[in-house]
């Protein structure tokens, strides 16, 4: 199956996994940081919100590294598109277009709702696929294993319902 992005052929999973491990370990060895992305949502919130939670030192201290890292993620996406057939704004959404078929306004609403779950859920759970799934599990932390099993279960049930029941 090719990617939605310019119909590119994806790199092998073993190579991708090795690359992710390399970044995770480089972040630790070179910068003494544990990989984690979803706290970045709090970093961005802390730029405008003034609640106690967003003014805590633990957050403001790590904002300095996580914000450029997240900027890099965006840049990586840009470079990937530019180097792989060119960058163009797109609304393409693969099997969503075939099976669910909402237009731009519907997609924005759909994605916003998904985002709400992601933002609230990752903060309540204390991390996402990177912080728990990659770093936490590699560090043999039990809460990370439990959280990873929980978000895999949540995703499996939701997608099975969406694509095998509701939009079957």
């Amino acid at each position, binding site marked *: 199956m090719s990617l939605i992005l310019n119909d590119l052929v994806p790199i092998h999973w073993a190579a991708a996994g090795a690359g992710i491990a390399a970044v995770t*370990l480089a972040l630790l060895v070179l910068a003494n940081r544990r990989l984690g992305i979803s706290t970045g949502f709090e970093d961005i919130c802390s730029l405008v919100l003034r609640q106690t939670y967003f003014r805590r030192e633990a957050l403001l201290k790590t904002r300095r590294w996580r914000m450029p890292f997240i900027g890099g993620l965006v*840049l*990586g996406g840009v470079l990937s598109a530019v180097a792989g057939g060119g960058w163009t704004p797109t609304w393409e959404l693969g*099997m969503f277009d075939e099976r669910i078929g909402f237009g731009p306004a519907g997609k924005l609403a759909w994605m916003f709702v998904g985002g709400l779950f992601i933002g609230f859920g990752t903060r309540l759970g204390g991390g996402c696929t990177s*912080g728990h799934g990659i770093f936490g599990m590699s560090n043999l932390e039990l*809460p990370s294993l439990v959280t990873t099993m929980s978000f895999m279960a*949540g995703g499996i049930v939701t997608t099975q319902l969406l694509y095998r029941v509701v939009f079957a």
Partner: protein
Amino acid sequence: MLLYLLLGTAFGFILSRSGAADYNYIQGMFLFEEFQLYGIIATAVALSAPGLWLVKTVGRTWRGPVNIGPPRLFTPGNIAGGLLFGVGWSIAGMCPGPIFVNIGEGKVYALAALAGALVGAGAFGTLYDRLQRAFRLPPIVVGTGQG
């Protein structure tokens, strides 16, 4: 700062080209029709785990003694938050990293996913006092941890 930008760029490029930031591959994983994402996560953990063990055994990094914080304690929030995040991952077809990667790729709808995630995180922080009691979360100065 430049180091973080570079590492983030490398990470973003890999996510973009591996299928980890691709709606079809995410749904394929949850439908048990695509092995790709399982292979990526398993390989990443299988290689990071011994590397991490080695770094911790040596005890040093380029920037001083290893400091990745105390082991995090389990809270009911891990299960509830994990389940909610999983629902969102399925709906949007993106986890947090790929939201940013997809924005970079030019996928317009990813901006709405980011907006939702910021509102969700903002609501979480605003309601922290109440959630802390319900889910036995750490004190507010600590938060739920970096991840």
